[in-house]
């Protein structure tokens, strides 16, 4: 069993919040923030559970979060 988790962002259909949150949590998402104006949920999930997030009704896309880094001056 892996416990590898990843930070993800999930876009959902308009009007599907907040109901979709329950399904996302059931599918393994630990919700970080709910961005209501954008219809996006961010959180962490086990890497292997990402496909099951995609099959949640109301979910449009699931992507891993990028990190950005600015070198020092």
């Amino acid at each position, binding site marked *: 069993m892996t416990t590898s988790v990843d930070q993800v962002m999930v876009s959902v259909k308009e009007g599907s919040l907040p109901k979709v949150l329950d399904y996302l949590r059931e599918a393994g998402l630990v919700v970080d923030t709910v961005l209501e104006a*954008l219809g996006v949920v961010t959180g962490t999930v086990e890497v292997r559970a990402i496909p099951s997030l995609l099959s949640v009704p109301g979910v449009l896309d699931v992507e891993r979060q*990028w990190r950005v880094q600015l070198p020092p001056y």
Partner: protein
Amino acid sequence: MTEPAEVETTGRFLVLLQQDAVEEGVAELGAIAGFDPNSGDLDPNTVQVFPQLGVAVVSADPNLLAELNGAAERPGPVLIVEPERVVHLFDAAPAEDPVGQADESVLTWGLQAVGADVSTATGKGVRIAVLDTGFEQNHPDFAGRTITTKSFIAGEDVQDGHGHGTHCIGTSAGPRKPATAPGYGIAYEAEIYAGKVLSNAGSGSDGGILAGIDWAVSNGCAVISMSLGADVPVNTPYSQIYETVAQRAMAKGTLIIAAAGNASSRPAKIAPVGHPARCPSIIAVAAIDVNRAIAFFSSGSADRIGQVDVAGPGVDVYSSFKLPEKYARLRGTSMATPHAAGVAVLIAEKTGARGFELWARLALSALRLQLPSTDVGGGLVQAP
């Protein structure tokens, strides 16, 4: 032609290992890449292991990628293999270039180039969000301004310990007549929303950036200026989530303007527009210099996905900075972006346009340049 795919990656591979089987995973990698995991002192140029993360970085002949991928597909300790990419915020390097022939005794060359000096618009009544490293709250040039702040970085307040954010706020919405010339702000009466989505060390992630966008949209900001992103290999698909977000923001009256990236080394190499500026519904801004030449570092339309939309002044840009420095001259598409965002605010004030109408007015009023559209899109943004 350009070949950024090769140069955007390091030639090494990132390997995600099963967290409770790191040693087994490294052993499997050693069998493929030809090193002995039990040799005691592993050459860090060959393999680096981060046990807490369950990640290894491996140098391997590109021909071994298929074998590494095979290991990832089989059940076992090797989960995911990716080429290692150089990922960073579009940095602002200190400007080394001497000022051209521009007279900056009153206003910066950038403000003159976008025609801010001959525009009657001020940005009054329009909200602009700058999502960056925060804001220098003790900067004397902003005393008396209406500035709303919020930090999306855990453990850090909005105070800008880096300087990049304060520089971008200065260009887009700083003063025209500071105590010491030159003036450097375009929409100098705009209402500023300073969102900290990058830490004082200059790092952040999509989660914080999206939270900043949500905050700006919820507060009715007409324009979001984002001098950040990550370089990507040519033909990388744009983020569907950012594209959806940008469309929704635009439908609510918020236009997102982002830096194209600094990954080119012209003339040898033109790198593609980075993430998230490569999304079709986000305006990608390239950088030109005082002579209206494309900046050597400015990323361009190197594939059919990420297109440059407009250009702005992005070399030898003077603006506000964190204290005690107070001012700095920087270069980068990070500096071109707040020029475009400030001009968009002026257009929003003067015409009342929001969303896609604002995009259209910004792009169509740009000054055409004697440069390829693949480098500068519709040209140099112009104040109304």
